[in-house]
């Protein structure tokens, strides 16, 4: 016996097909996929910026002056920390033709405290904002020869803590950078 149970009529078929296709089209078109490629580009840009800033800070302004970064590391005091923060912050946030950028940073350096019994120490320099742990930060580093030939007596800030006798030393300056 002939009846219409289970039949799909043309008009309903067309409508269903169109609805399904349009739904699929809109869903695919509206979805924003943040690919891994995008992330590494912005990371690279931040890292290049941080590396450039450290490199520029380690360059003497003239043959007769010292490198600002080296001077800061050699005499780390509260004032020098502020100087680093101001210089580094200005460099990474400066732009050519628009308002300043909003890149945050946290800087420190690592050193070996003793030649005979080396212990790796770390000193915080300055940060534009405290790290909360949720930031997607990239790292920029620069080896700096710190001129730490102070006498090591109390009150002399021109040597790396725990290092005796004071003398020139390679320290690794490390800066974490991220965007708000």
């Amino acid at each position, binding site marked *: 016996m*002939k009846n219409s149970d289970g039949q*799909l009529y043309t008009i309903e078929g067309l409508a269903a097909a169109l609805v399904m296709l349009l739904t699929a089209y809109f869903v695919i078109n509206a979805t924003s996929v943040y690919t891994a490629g995008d992330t590494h580009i912005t990371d690279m840009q931040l890292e290049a910026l941080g590396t450039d800033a450290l490199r520029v800070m380690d360059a003497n302004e003239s043959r007769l002056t010292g490198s600002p970064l080296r001077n800061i590391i050699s005499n780390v005091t509260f004032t020098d920390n502020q100087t680093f923060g101001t210089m580094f912050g200005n460099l990474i946030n400066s732009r050519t033709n628009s308002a300043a950028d909003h890149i945050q940073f946290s800087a420190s350096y690592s050193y070996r405290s003793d030649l005979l019994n080396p212990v790796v120490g770390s000193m915080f320099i300055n940060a534009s904002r405290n790290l909360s742990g949720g930031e997607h930060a990239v790292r920029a580093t620069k080896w700096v020869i710190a001129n730490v030939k102070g006498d090591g007596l109390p009150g002399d800030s021109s040597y790396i803590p725990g290092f005796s006798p004071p003398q020139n030393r390679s320290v690794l300056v490390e800066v974490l950078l991220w965007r708000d």
Partner: protein
Amino acid sequence: MTDDTGALSIDFLVGFTIFLLAFIWVASMIPGIMVGLQSYTIDYDAVAYRTGVILVEDPGWPVSPPWESFSDFQKSNMTRFGLAVSKDTPNILSQDKVNRFFCTTFVYPDDYHTRAIFGDYPYGFNISLKDAAGEYQSVGSITPLGYGTIRRIVKIKGPSNATIGTGNYAKYPSFYNKTENVTTHVFSFLIDNPRLLDDVKNPAYQIDPAREQLTINVTDLRATITDYPTAVPPIENMTSTIELVNVRVYKKEGALYSNVPLPASEYPFVNGSSTRVTSMPVPHTDNVTIKLTPYYFDLMKAQNCQIYLALGFNVTPPSTFLNNTQALPDFNNLDAKLTFENVNTTPFNYNYEVENVTQPHLRDAVLEVAVWSGGG
């Protein structure tokens, strides 16, 4: 008995066929849709990064003579734009290269595309530079939406220069004013290239005339004339006539001196003019600026030689004047050996003495490269 259970209806077949055709059509569009989902700036970011590296970390090509010393007519000799002082000094840019790169005589985008952006695709781009003093330079179009970019922090190496003026004359009168009242006076300079390259090795602070323009300003020429109102005729520095007769250049290679012609493109600037004089002698000269380009040093193969410059002046009426050279036998037929190896000749040494020469100085700047599609 005929049983049609399980048979497909025509309606269903038609509908399903249309659905399949539409599905295939949509499926064929999916790759194109995915292109839109991916970052369309990835390529532009990469090109911007590459251009940033070329500009900031590379001195360009050719290196010697440097590309920036070629004129617009010699543009075909410029293979690659690079702004770094040398390949060993990334992020330190040469002021001469920066000035030439942002000059208005290059054609956007063609001249830049083939020498800095590269690739067959007609990218649009904007390259801008701002230094710590706020001086802004750029080339390119206004950036549209969806462009790739890179920002580089750099230092710009300012050129060295020497300015000789009343301060010098007052401090060392016997050095700058060696003669009595005569008409012809000669003032000479020594550019000791081997010493310049040897005393400072770091290209960031080196004075290298073969790579960077060298500038010497001789100012306040009238101040070197001593007034003698009772003389006949009376000598008064405000009324005396000063004529720049000529500029002669000598190259010392080993123990041999050779006279090198000064091309018109290297003629001096006088009286603060922004253009070089077209001929000499130059009457009524109050101050002289010598600017020697790296191209000239390359032309005379003087990268490793001592160069002597002698400025000849005629002063009327005869008087004292700027003079540190005993020109033998005379300025127009000057014997370089007798003249420059003479105890009465003490040429002004263009060297690393801060008292004589303003040393190269680095200043902060930021460079941005933006790249997008289209070339517009």
